[in-house]
């Protein structure tokens, strides 16, 4: 066990368990893990968020916006 002696308690190895991104990775059994619209009522924009898993296990998130851009 790693002992934290002189105050670096912000990182407690005993509290760090498993994959940090488990909320994303554990849902990776299907190709598209999440797809949902986010509509803000206060003037924000709607977006679609798709999460996929890459071949090497990393996640990739596609954000697609409802409004088409006039120009970039």
């Amino acid at each position, binding site marked *: 066990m790693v*002992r*934290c002696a002189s105050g670096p308690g912000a990182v407690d190895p005993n509290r*760090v368990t498993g994959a*940090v991104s488990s909320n994303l990775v554990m849902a990776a059994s299907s190709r598209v893990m999440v797809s949902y619209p986010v509509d803000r009522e206060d003037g924000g924009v709607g*977006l679609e968020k798709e999460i996929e898993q890459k071949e090497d296990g990393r996640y990739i*998130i596609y954000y697609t916006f409802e409004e088409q851009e006039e120009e970039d």
Partner: protein
Amino acid sequence: MNQLRWDPTLREWVAYATHRQDRTFLPPTEYCPLCPTEPGGFPTEVPREHYDIVVFENKFPSFAPDAPVPDERGSLLTPTAPGRGICEVVLYSDDHDATLATLSERRIRNLIEVWADRYEELGANEVVEYVFIFENKGEAIGVTLHHPHGQIYGYPFIPPRPAKELETARAYRAQNEGRCLHCDLLSQEHEDARRLLTKGEHFTAFIPFYAHFPFEAHVYSRRCTPSIADLEGAERLDLASVLKRLLVGYDSLFGFSLPYMMVMHQAPTDGGAYDGIAHFHIEFYPPNRTADKLKYLAGSETGAGAYIMDVLPERTAETLRGKIEGP
């Protein structure tokens, strides 16, 4: 290998990620790993022909979700810990030649939505104590890929600079009848006006009285809000507008796309109370002091932590303000 080693002299962690030595370095445009994948072409990080904005886990992360307990155990004085955390890459556009400055205000606003979403999602993870959104732009900063992108680090600790800023703001609040340090700084800049760069309805850009780089700019939310995720729709729109004006001004300064570091300071996600202490703002640090001279972090800055500046913020603000269009 991702591990943390404790520096007891400065009371801060140093992260080691030795695999990053092998990361992609300035590839030719046709082999850019951040461009969309063309049919039958070189497979990039993004297996689609087009995209708006994309976020993915960094292939060469400084912190990794599954970093093991280090073989190197350290000592009671110098302990080690797993370098666990999350490192993401944010692709601003599928246009290889774009920069944040050339994006439309609408796309920048969309990017703000993505940044806010990442802050909330990464911040909800129990291991992530600080969500740090940043961009390194230009080879002068050490960028290895030119495609327009930023990064997000989900640190397992509050990094030293934001920690010091928060500690100072907390002390200031305690000593000044609950006042926010950043709100007072912003009021002072508004009142003085000599260092203001551009103002929107909800955000102000200025060169701080105590700038550490000649053209360092801070973009403050006028409302005392702890994080980007707390911004309302109108504030996000205004932030996009102010950022656009500032960035176009930066590129007009010397007639080329200005390198910079862009960082966001906001509330940690460690479960602590930061209302009135963390005040969301963005800081830009361009390294150029002239078109062909850089401000280096040399002996005094690196070894003593004392910045030596050879131009006053009032002077650089006047110059930069002259390059910015709009209010």
